[in-house]
């Protein structure tokens, strides 16, 4: 979800009417935007855009365009998409690009003198599109150039890493692509995209001047656009043709909205693409879709009628064609997010305003219920609370030190943990296989808190189980501890015994050895012949490891689902 900066004045100019901050807020639903921050002095508004499928809205021009369309009840299509004349300029794609970075799209923007504001917004759009939409330039990256210095045709081809030298943006001296990858900050940041290439992509013109080394860096001579430049050349390269074309379409529309005349560029490929071997860009990729009015009305729960639906869609920027039986719609060329008729239905609802739909209560009768596990948990919790135990509620992630080392079970059969691969911190490295460490953590942190301490938690734990499909099982456990100067086995046993009595869970204790507990004061809890847990006095070494000065005993066992 990108967050961008827009400026009130610039925004108003693009919408074509004066707008107060509260107008801007009111219009935000049309673009699924949320105003995060407003600076009254500068008129800067920070807007978060929710829709990851609408990159056209990640810029002030796009937000203004969508709102303008709704306010004006429609928008004329951009003429350069339907320009029948052939393009005057050409990019020749060289053989071999198909395995490196196969696609390019480009256009020329004439007659708009770049303002400081326009330039800032262009750079912001370039970054947001390449970063969030283009997955950090991997699938899409964008370059802007001073058009007047370029001699066409431009070639998009491959060079050996040290074959050529040019001055990259941000540097004074000429460098080879290889040097850029090893020295230039952008080379270091994005170089991994080209990690497996022995020849590198480059754009150069017919005079042999380098435009850029995509997706890493522009040349300083041609690719440093400045305030006041009137004519621009825009190119997008990448690995997915529709994404590359869409990004270019968005850029072209943005510049046109600021007053530029857009001219097309022909891209000629030595290999097939989904749009042929010669692709004129910008290019409208959207085909008209016949939509079912019934499906829309059903989805929205309202018999809106064909007229109203057509009006709403036209307002939102769709091209709408209706015959007597059917309605066909085409998305504007700066969008490519149609997948299902429901996408169209949502646009109808957005245009009309969600508040214009009166809510209806679902009428179906259903029976509510809690799961068996939750009902059992609740009964156990009620009993333990009645026994005088304070309920604890812990995070499930914990450290290896807490779960294993302090429990004295390192390198034993008990040290079986589900661990995470991408650690954020050692504190949260594993899922707890047992709740007792969580309760001991509370005791360790609370030595000055009024005694006695009777604590329990009923909750989920994760058991490593390589036989299971996911390599682990989620289990529900009950754990309780008693920490006070007289805490011992028989005290905690009394509580366990009483709990088992009221739950009607017949059990047996089997004398065992367990490293966390004192020898001779520990038992394995068995229910219906299954080993379900342990009860005992904690070993002084466990208490020392937790820095607990109070004798502590406890039990924990798994609640097994009733066998079917």
């Amino acid at each position, binding site marked *: 979800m990108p967050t961008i900066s827009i400026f009130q004045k610039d925004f108003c100019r693009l919408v074509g009417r004066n707008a107060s901050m509260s107008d801007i807020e009111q219009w935000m639903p049309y673009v*699924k935007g949320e105003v995060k921050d407003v600076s009254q002095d500068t008129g800067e508004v920070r807007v978060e855009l929710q829709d990851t499928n609408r990159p056209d809205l990640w810029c002030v021009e796009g937000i203004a365009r969508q709102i303008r369309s709704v306010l004006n009840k429609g928008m004329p299509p951009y003429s350069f998409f339907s320009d029948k004349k052939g393009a005057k300029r050409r990019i020749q794609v060289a053989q071999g690009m198909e395995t490196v970075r196969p696609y390019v799209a480009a256009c020329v923007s004439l007659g708009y003198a770049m303002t400081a504001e326009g330039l800032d917004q262009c750079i912001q759009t370039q970054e947001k599109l390449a970063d969030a939409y283009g997955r950090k330039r991997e699938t899409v990256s964008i370059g802007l150039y001073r058009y007047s210095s370029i001699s066409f045709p431009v070639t998009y081809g491959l060079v050996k890493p040290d074959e050529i030298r040019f001055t990259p943006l941000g540097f004074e001296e000429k460098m080879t692509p290889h040097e850029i990858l090893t020295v230039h900050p952008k080379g270091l940041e994005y170089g991994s995209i080209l990690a497996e290439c022995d020849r590198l992509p480059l754009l150069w013109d017919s005079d042999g001047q380098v435009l850029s080394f995509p997706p890493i860096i522009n040349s300083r001579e041609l690719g440093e656009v400045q305030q006041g430049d009137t004519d621009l050349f825009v190119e997008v390269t990448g690995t997915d043709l529709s994404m590359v074309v869409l990004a270019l379409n968005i850029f072209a529309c943005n510049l046109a909205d600021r007053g530029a005349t857009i001219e097309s560029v022909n891209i000629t490929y030595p290999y097939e693409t989904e749009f042929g071997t010669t692709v004129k860009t910008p290019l409208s990729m959207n085909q008209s879709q016949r939509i079912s009015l019934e499906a829309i009305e059903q989805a929205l729960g309202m018999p809106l009628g064909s007229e109203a639906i057509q009006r709403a869609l036209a307002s939102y920027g769709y091209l709408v064609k209706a015959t007597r039986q059917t309605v066909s719609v085409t998305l504007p060329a700066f969008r490519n997010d149609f997948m299902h008729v*429901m996408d169209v239905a949502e646009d109808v609802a957005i245009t009309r305003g969600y508040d214009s739909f009166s809510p209806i209560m679902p009428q179906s009768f259903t029976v509510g219920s*809690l799961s068996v596990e939750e009902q059992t948990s609740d009964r156990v919790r009620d009993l333990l609370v009645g026994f005088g135990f304070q309920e604890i509620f812990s995070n499930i992630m914990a450290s290896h030190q807490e779960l294993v080392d302090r429990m004295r079970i390192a390198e034993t059969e008990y040290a079986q943990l589900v661990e995470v691969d991408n650690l954020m911190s050692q504190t949260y490295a594993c899922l707890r296989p047992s709740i007792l460490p969580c309760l001991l953590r509370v005791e360790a942190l609370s030595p000055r808190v009024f005694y006695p301490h009777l604590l329990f938690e009923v909750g989920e734990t994760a058991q490593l189980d390589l036989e299971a499909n996911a390599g*682990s099982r989620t289990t529900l456990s009950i754990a309780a501890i008693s920490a006070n100067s007289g805490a011992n086995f028989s005290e905690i046993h009394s509580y366990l015994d009483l709990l088992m009595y009221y739950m009607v869970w017949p059990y047996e204790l089997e004398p065992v050895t367990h490293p966390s507990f004192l020898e001779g004061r520990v038992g394995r809890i068995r229910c219906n012949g299954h080993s379900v847990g342990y009860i005992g006095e904690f070993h002084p070494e466990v208490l020392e490891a937790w820095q607990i000065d109070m004798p502590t005993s406890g039990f924990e066992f798994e609640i097994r689902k009733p066998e079917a």
Partner: protein
Amino acid sequence: MNSPNNTDSLHPLEIHVLRALGKDPKPLSDLQLATHTELAPSQVSMAVGWLLTKQLVSLSTESTTTYVSLTTVGTQYHQPDSSPLEWIIQTVKNADPEGSPPTVKDLQATGKFQPSELSRAIGILKKEGVLQMGAGGILEITSKDSDIVRDLRNLINQVHEATHPLDSFTSDHQALLRQYAVKRGNTQEPFRIDDHTERTYVLTAEGRNLLPHLREGAAQETSQLTPELLKDGSWRNVSFRKYSINLRPPRLAVGRRHSYREFLDTVKYKLTSMGFQEMRGELIETEFWDMDALFMPQFHPARAIHDVYFVKNPKMAKNIPEPFLSQVAQVHRDGGTSGSKGWKYEYDSERAKRLVLRSQGTAVSARTLAQNPPIPGKFFSIARCFRYDNVDATHATDFFQVEGIVLGSDINFRTLLGLLQLFATEMAQAKEIRFFPAYFPFTEPSVELHVRHPKLGWMELGGAGLFRSEVTIPLGVTVPVIAWGLGLDRMAMVALGIQDIRDLFTSDLEAVRNMRRQF
């Protein structure tokens, strides 16, 4: 309200102390009070404490004196020749003149003192010239007498008789006492030096006014009704002391539900009362159920390594059940039979098996959809979820998501709004609500619900939408389905008076015990 200082409510101990202070015009110390009242010092200090709180007695003077007393070690040293210094001198002196002279090792071998104590004592005696050490650690006594041994002996005898103020000793002796007094890290010393604060008390005007009204024979009053008094009927002949009922009662440690869990309990009871059935899932999920089944493409930015915790071992589930894997793969590729164009990319069936910590409760809903759920049906889960994020005041390592689904042939955008309206009143007692367009990868249309909570003002209560056909069709569901999620943590935090989300799961018992719902 009655004055708390009603004479009837005075404890017999308090009456004794008040009388003693009333008899003597001078301020009295704790010790003097104990003598005058013939009470134990602990009883006096208890009574004085209560009287100070009631402002019947006030502090007159306070002076701190430093006293010297013997420790248990010092009491042992009081026996002749039992301190390390004396013992060494005696042992060396009394060694058999015929045998080999005693060495340091010999002394250590007796085990009478710790080696460190012995070497320190030997050091002192050597320095004073009383003891000499030869080759092989052989010890010999010189003709010189030890001043230190003599002075320490006198001091131990003197302090053994009675505790003395430190300043009653000469400055040389004071230095010696300090040198041989227990300190942090060295408890094997004969003397203890501590500060003792002596306080004296007088009656306040109110205390003095009470004097004529003090009960006679207070000693015969009874504070506690006992089984014996009841059995033999003698309760009729005793009078019961009246209590100061406004004193704070003693603290209790009781059993109680955790406040946040109790909050979630009310949520689950509310949902069941609205006809929702609980679903449960697994903490560890496959990417398939956590994301793919929810039509989040495998190249989706939210699926990058920075949002999800991956499991270390094993990394992959054994299998993904069919026909769901094929159907979901198909819908990602080209929409399959869902009426969608799909995401148009090569779906990676291996990646679908990758194990993650459940990152969203919607995974539980996806599994329910695949289990041929009853229609109409309403389901909810309160699922523990995990996000790969820096833990701070607004991000917990694991947290609960309250979410669910509603299936039915009557489901559409307006019933979705109706359900949200119901949530607003039931969950947040809100009368004013607003709906905003929203984006979730698995719903279309999508709504954000904003409500005006009576305590919190306008807040986002939840997000919802109609599940995309791309989600429902591959899982075998053909009716429309509402997917909803509620964001209740902020409400819980305000209700529990918590600012930091981590405190919902705090390990501080005091905080857990003090936590309570304020609305």
